[in-house]
Each structure stands twice: as C-alpha cells, then as structure tokens.
C-alpha cells in the first residue's frame, strides 16, 4: 500500500483547522496543523510534508513570507495558498512568489480535495526553473512569445494582445482541451469577470485572421467545455 500523502495545514483560524484537519485525514491524508508562520516553518522540518496548504493573513510571519522561505529551502514542495484578501493582486503575488496553486476562501471540501489531489499528481520539473519556451511554430505559423508577435511566413498578422495570448495558451497545450475558465484566467487574469462571450469573440477574430492566411481550422471548439489547438506545435527556442 502506498504511504498516505502528508499535508501541513497552516491557518490562524483554529475553528477552520479543527474541521479541515479531520476531514482531510478521513480523505486519506496524514495531516499536521500549524497556527502561525513560525510554527509552520518548524513543522516543515520535522514532518516533511508533501504539500502545504497555506493561509496568507496570519499574525507574525505571514503566508507570503513563509512561502518565500519554503521556496528557498525546497523547490519540490507543493504549496497551495488560501487567498483571502479581496482582489486579484493577492493571487498573482502568491503565484509569482512560487505557489503552485491558490484557492479562494471560502471553498467547498470537494474543491480543496480536487486541488490537493491534482497538485500531488503533477510531476515536478527536474530541470532549471526557467523552462519557458520563447518561440513556437506550426507549419508556416510562428509565434514569438517574448515580443508577442505572430507571423504567417514572413507576414506579421494583425492580432491584438488578447488574441495572441489565447493563441499562445492553446499552442502551449497543443492537442489538449483547454477549459474556458483556464483560458480566461490565463489571458485576462484572475477575477477579471470576463464571461465565455468575450473569449468566444476573441477566438472568432483569431480564427478569421488565421484562416485568411490559409491556415485551416487550427482551433477546435469542444462544446461548453473549451478549446483545443489541433496543429503540430514545435518549440523553436
């Protein structure tokens, strides 16, 4: 039998820990809790968790500082941040500081379980952290991800930033279904309150420009679920 994954819960709300800890234990995890940042850093050393569920607002060392210290120590540890300050900047800061994912409070138990399990399934990159591709190609289509420009052969295509963002996101996940909410968040940012209607309009503009350049339907609609790039994508650099 595989060992039960180890979770460290960090939150200064004892009521939440008292309820969340038994729930996660019954869901198949070994769980230890910490009520503040200092305690969390000590328990990471002694308990050696696979994943830390980390609240941001805490007295003393806050969640961001704990996150930064943990990342300096261990790049492989999964960290799920519990974001609770209203606004998107909080989440962007969490992701920039090295969190693997975030979950907005309040959350249903099904959601927290799904996020934890998804993170634990995610393979850790073994190489240096900057593995981000810079240029993508598909047939005569060429996307420069640094300059945010798209070319068909030598001709630059008249696409806006959002269209290029959508195209890049789909090409980076070529062959896979990219769900609507993931695309919206990747291109417009979290909490942008953009519905699928704007994404649809953006994809329609993109398709038309690509089809004008004799690129057949490279973007497939998966009804009600999302979109998929169906061309063969090469990472050029």
């Amino acid at each position: 039998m595989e060992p039960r994954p180890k979770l460290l819960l960090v939150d200064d709300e004892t009521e939440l820990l008292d309820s969340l800890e038994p729930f996660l234990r019954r869901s198949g995890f070994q769980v230890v809790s910490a009520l503040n940042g200092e305690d969390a850093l000590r328990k990471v050393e002694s308990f050696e968790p696979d994943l830390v569920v980390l609240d941001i607002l805490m007295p003393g060392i806050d969640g961001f500082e704990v996150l930064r210290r943990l990342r300096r120590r261990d790049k492989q540890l999964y960290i799920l941040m519990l974001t609770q300050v209203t606004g998107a900047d909080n989440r962007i800061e969490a992701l920039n500081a090295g969190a693997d994912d975030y979950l907005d409070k309040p959350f249903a138990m099904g959601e927290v379980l799904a996020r934890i399990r998804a993170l634990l399934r995610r393979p850790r990159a073994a190489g240096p952290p900057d593995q981000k591709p810079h240029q993508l190609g598909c047939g005569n289509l060429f996307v420069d991800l640094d300059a945010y420009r798209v070319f068909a052969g030598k001709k630059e295509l008249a696409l806006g930033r959002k269209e290029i963002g959508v195209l890049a996101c789909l090409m980076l996940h070529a062959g896979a279904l990219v769900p609507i909410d993931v695309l919206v968040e990747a291109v417009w940012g979290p909490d942008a309150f953009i519905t699928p209607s704007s994404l649809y309009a953006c994809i329609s503009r993109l398709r038309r420009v690509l089809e004008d350049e004799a690129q057949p339907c490279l973007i497939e609609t998966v009804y009600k679920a999302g979109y998929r790039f169906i061309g063969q994508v090469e990472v050029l650099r």
Partner: protein
Amino acid sequence: MKDERLIPEQDWYRFYARLDHAIKNPLAVIYACVGNLRYESLSPEGQGRLDTVEGQLDELRRLLRGLRSVARLAEIEMEEEQIDIVDVVKWTLEAAREAPGAQEICGGHPLTLHGAEGSADRPVVIGDRDYLLEALYSVVENACKFSPPGAPVDVWVEPEGDWLRIKVVDQGIGIPDEDLPHLGKELYRGASVHGMPGLGLGLARLRVVLGRHGGHFEVQSKEGEGTAVSLMLPLASRRD
C-alpha cells in the same frame, strides 16, 4: 479611466470587500463541517439535508463573489483604446448566437443589428473592448431571457450629438413601472422575475462598466410589450 460620479459609491465597494472578507472564514468552517458530516453514516434524509446546507452555502458564496465582482469592476484596470463600436456589437451578437453555452438562452431569438453599419464614418468610442462587449452581451442575454421563445431582439447603433446610443429592444415581458427607478441597484430584482435564475447584479455591473467609460444606461419599458435598454457612451470625438 475614472468617472467622478463613481466616487460616492466607493464606500459601498469597500463595504462589499469587508463583508466578503468577514464572512469568508465562517463560511469556510461551515463547508468543512459539512465535509466531515459526509463521512458519517447518515440516513438518506440526513444526506438530503446536508445537500440543502451545501447548496445554500454555494448560493451565499455566489452572492458574495457577485458583490465583490461589482466592487472589482470599479477598480480593475481597463484598456483605453479606440473602438469601432459596430464591430463590438457584431461580435456580441455572434457570441450570443454561437458561443458555447449561449444558445440555451439566446438560441431561437433572431438578433439583428440596425444602423451605422454601412456608414463610412463608423462611431468610435474610447475604452475597453472586452468589458464593453461583456456589458452589451449581458443586456442582449437579458432581452432573450425575458422574451417568449423565438421573439426578435433588435440592436440599434445611433450617434446622438456627442453621444452614442446602443439600444437593445425586445418584445418580452417588460418591467413594471415601480421597478424602473431601482434597476442597476445591487441585488434588486423586480417582482416579475422572482423565481427566475439570477442574483440581481447584471445591471449593477453594467452601470459600473458604463460609468468607467463616462457613460450610463437608460431603460424604457412597458409590461407585456417589451423593453428597450440603451447603453449611452461618449463618442471619441467628444472626449478629445
């Protein structure tokens, strides 16, 4: 982009943020308690009651997120670019006809754009194309939602002096006179739409988005005959 008329509302937006923050932890604890109870051997009736508790929690959370979305729209960064508004209207109608999920509400309603399209001098406004599309889409979606199946929805694009009027006209259930002054207030829902899905935040979001563009909305309606919602935006020439 800032609209002076929004400033008195900032206190409300801050209140939504505080409310959202204050309620988050208690809700998270209740969710966790429900999660624990799911592991108990409850009777089918007990499980059903838990489903009800969780359903109501979801509703409360949706409501808080909706209120926060109004507050966020008032402060979120928006683009300031020149926009050919006819293009925005066309994309909106195409999205309403064909976007995944849109057909359930808008399908079967003929959606038609009138005016301005053939004109050489197409109206231009300054703002954020995506948020204007969202604003117009919500009005078109409402027009379809509150109309009988197959009833047409017409959109008119008409410059009026320094302003641009985008008028969405439906032949739906209409809005009672007593509700008209309250449209756009957060969580306000007219008596005629009780029992229909919605939080009463769509027009509040519309008000904020238009306010961020220096605009506003106007509503004319007659019960049983239909509604005309106009999005009023300053033309780019006026803002120069």
